[in-house]
């Protein structure tokens, strides 16, 4: 699970265009500057490419914080 979090770090920095961004499981749209519907979809598309997974449309609303993203990717890879 930690490994997934580590792989998320550079993706977040790239998508949100913040070189020093540090994320944790608790990070969410309120704590990460610029996390809006637009960047959310860019993030999802980047995650799909990085982890070679495909999220269902109905799953996108579950990805509201980093912890939720890690859990869902873990489920998809498992």
């Amino acid at each position: 699970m930690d490994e997934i979090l580590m792989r998320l770090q550079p993706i977040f920095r790239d998508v949100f265009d913040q070189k020093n961004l540090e994320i944790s499981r608790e990070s969410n749209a309120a704590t990460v500057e610029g996390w809006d519907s637009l960047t959310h979809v860019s993030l999802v598309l980047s995650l799909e490419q990085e982890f070679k997974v495909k999220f269902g449309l109905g799953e996108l609303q579950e990805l509201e914080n980093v912890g939720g993203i890690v859990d869902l990717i873990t489920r998809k890879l498992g």
Partner: protein
Amino acid sequence: MLFSSFPYVFCFLPVVVLGFWAVAKLGHVPARWFLITASLVFYALGDARGIPYLLLSALVNCWFGVRIGAAQQGLKSRLLRLGLGLNVFQLLIVKYWAFLVSAVGLTPPAHGWHVPVGISFFTLIQIIYLIDCAEGLAVPHDLRQHLLFSSFFPYVTMGPLVRSRDVPRELPTAGAGLPADNAARAIEFFVFGLFKKTVFAQSLAALSDTGWGMTRRLSVAEAWLTVIAFALELYFDFSGYTDMAIGSAALLGVKLPLNFDAPYKATSIIMFWKRWHITLSSFITTYLYTPLMRLRRRPSFGWAMTVTVVSMVIAGLWHGAAWTFVIFGLFHGVALVINHLWRRAKLPFPDFLGWLLTFGFVAGTLILFRAPSVAVAEEMVGNLLGHGGHGFDVDAFLSSGLAAVRALMALAAAAVCLFAPTSQAVVAKFGASYRRAAFIVVAALAALVFMNSLAAKEFIYRDF
């Protein structure tokens, strides 16, 4: 039947809640049929002609849900496309036929289709359900489950938009009962909603309706007052309705999603759409914006902005078959693009200025929501800019009685939506105390007094 009416508050809701918990002791099946019957009665009291339509939509989508859930991949996606196509097609035909015909320059038929109440809401709910079935996120409903899911009275006419997981597959049965503090929270939600609608929204409506009734004669100040009053009215009308829906459902043990989160405190248009009609914004982002974005392997910023504008125009049109709604969506799409460009450039923007601009923009574009035609909207904009008349005599407003009380309530409403916590924030801090009980009782009594003294007005979103 209005949520904010005596028959609902003193007859329908108590009978259904007490009846449901009594019948629930007999088991799932009678409890579910009881709620289905109550929901269909509720719907029929508002629009009896729409009942066959609502039932047909529920049956057809129930069949699709089961088939999609059982099908292999190739067939699954074909069935999903067919099911989604049918839902969109029937909405286009029933709600937009006359608009589409006149848009291509033909004369629409004199007698159009009957547009069932809540069609825009219950069609979107079916669309979400079919996609959830195809993605394995919902176990297909049996007929009973789907009839209740499709017709549940707290949300059938005006949302919030729900997913299969929001309505429990197994209703509470014997012994479960409704915990007392859950019931108290539900009643608080309902009372806040009732207060918002009867005291705030209807007081604001007295102002805005007076202004909108004489758009040819408004002075600059009156025009601004009318426009701001309508923006506040729409918020208290719709969020009041939603609070009552959430409270009603909670009394039956069902937790509905939130729809508003202090939208008029937003300091940007992006923030506004995260807080206004949240379940619709979420639908647009998830089921319209994302699939359009996925059409490109690596969507550029330009593509994202194009998709934003297209999504907002469709969202505008969802509200009603008129050019005013198309233009409303277009304005908001363009505003979002400007907001995104500003963010991308990492330019600062003072919060107060952001708030002023956002509220001003929203209130200004809501002229298109309220105006019966683009021409009348233009007239109102002219008034705002000082091209209007010399002002109306205030007699029409004053003679309607209670003018001072209404004006005071309108001011209080403005203060509440800017400074007070949201209903959900207050309910979340629930704790039994005399002070709190007194507060709720006073709010309920005030709501009832206003309910009695003012002509009941339909919820604005009921027409969408």
